[in-house]
């Protein structure tokens, strides 16, 4: 139970070291797979070559525009999803009857691939950039609504009662209690949503067609069999997703300080 103080292994350093084990393991497995005859190394590039490609693509600025486009689309989609999803989720979650009526729609569209719905979005939003953003926003929105509503429905009732008995209006109960009570679950939703928005944007850029973005880069690299470029693009995409998640983890730690107590 006692922790000895070690000046070289401060908890901070240890935490960072731990966070680096994951990526290191990934690279190690990749390296071994590439180096041995496990898988055809024609289709799996050398990890270090890939990092070199990544570095030079970033350095030369050739990737920046694509990265920027994807980031912009993802954040745009996510912002819409969060802004519209949290209040709707709270409203739905706080009223069991309303929730039951829309549950079908939420679960239905959550289970329908965004790409299959694309013709519909094309109808509504046209072929431009916004259709892609809209389809990602819609997918992410469903996830936010689902999680927030779930959080509200599963929250403990005593605090809501406490607010009500103090004379809080429906709106104040919303804002002051339900919002906070559902926050841990809201963060689950936001983290799932930001990753999903990124995935849908990439898929849309890959398969629906686009003139820029990381998905476009991936499919182009795939078509010319520039595997290093392709994996470099996938890597940076995953890293962006991880970055978003780290951001939300930090935010959550800071905001939901009462979790588990």
């Amino acid at each position, binding site marked *: 139970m006692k922790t000895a103080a070690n000046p070289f292994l401060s908890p901070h350093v240890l935490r960072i070291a731990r966070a680096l084990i994951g990526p290191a393991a990934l690279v190690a497995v990749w390296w071994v797979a590439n180096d041995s005859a496990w898988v055809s190394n024609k289709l799996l590039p050398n990890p270090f070559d890939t990092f070199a490609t990544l570095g030079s693509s970033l350095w030369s600025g050739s990737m920046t525009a694509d990265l920027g486009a994807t980031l912009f689309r993802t954040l745009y989609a996510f912002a819409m999803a969060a802004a519209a999803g949290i209040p709707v989720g709270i409203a739905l979650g706080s009223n069991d009857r309303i929730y039951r009526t829309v549950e079908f729609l939420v679960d239905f569209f959550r289970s329908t691939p965004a790409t299959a719905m694309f013709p519909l979005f094309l109808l509504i939003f046209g072929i431009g950039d916004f259709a892609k953003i809209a389809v990602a926003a819609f997918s992410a929105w469903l996830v936010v609504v689902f999680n927030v509503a779930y959080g509200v429905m599963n929250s403990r009732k005593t605090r809501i*009662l*406490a607010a009500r008995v103090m004379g809080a209006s429906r709106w104040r109960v919303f804002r002051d209690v339900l919002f*906070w009570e559902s926050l841990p679950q809201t963060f689950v939703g936001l983290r799932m949503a930001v990753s999903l928005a990124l995935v849908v944007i990439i898929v849309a850029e890959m398969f629906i067609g686009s003139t820029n973005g990381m998905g476009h880069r991936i499919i182009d690299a795939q078509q010319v069999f520039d595997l290093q470029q392709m994996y470099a693009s996938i890597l940076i995409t995953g890293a962006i997703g991880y970055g978003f998640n780290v951001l939300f983890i930090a935010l959550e730690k800071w905001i939901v300080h009462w979790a588990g107590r």
Partner: protein
Amino acid sequence: MNSVVDFSHVQHEPPAVPAAERAHITVRGLHKAFGGVPVYSDFNLDLPKGRVTCVFGPNGCGKSTLINMIAGLIPHDAGDILFDGKTLQQTTIGYVFQNYREALFPWMRAIDNIRYPLKLKGMSEADCDARVQELIESFDVRFDLNRYPYEFSGGQQQLISIMRALAPHPEVLFLDEPFSALDYEMTLFIREKLQEIFQATGVTMIVVSHDLEEAVYLANHILLLTKRPTRVADNVFFDAARPRDLRTLSSDAFVRTKARCLDIFQNEVRK
């Protein structure tokens, strides 16, 4: 209707009740069941205005359920609950939950928890601060309220919960076992505080307590409940002058009233 309690179910003689007492809360024909098993059926009750009513009864008889229904926190199956001339919404209620740990907002600092009902009433920042300061001084709080509820011990949390309930100068104050987690000294202290507040404001107080001494000490009326299906076993009147103090505890009337309550209670529980 001038009598404080509907005695139609009670075989005891009604005690002499001052004519001045008016019912603040009137319960008529109340029905409540959990999963088909009734807790209350055709239950009638009057809670007098400006008086302290202590509710005393065995575990699980429905004390919390009763005051929850009165405060509109859980629905009742049938019957009417009327507030003296006002609706429930128009009445400022203070409520200390038995489950006080889960009733504080962990996302607010303790001080903001106390301030919350004031902000709900639209009080200005300055007024809020003044009121909270007043409470802190009145309760002689020595620990730092700028921490979050989960950082306090059980007793401290209960004190914060009481302060929050008192903050908006409620017209009716419900306290569900407010002393259960408080230490000896603190119990005495809060007891005196409640009496002081009662004397100063004449708030209608409903206190659930398992400590008979405490109940009688605080009460104008001791409402004794039976086991389920719950009825009013008796409503004992105790009119010792206020402020009450240590001498009250050793007074004849006190000892007699307490003994009588205990008697009724034990009769009911052992039935």
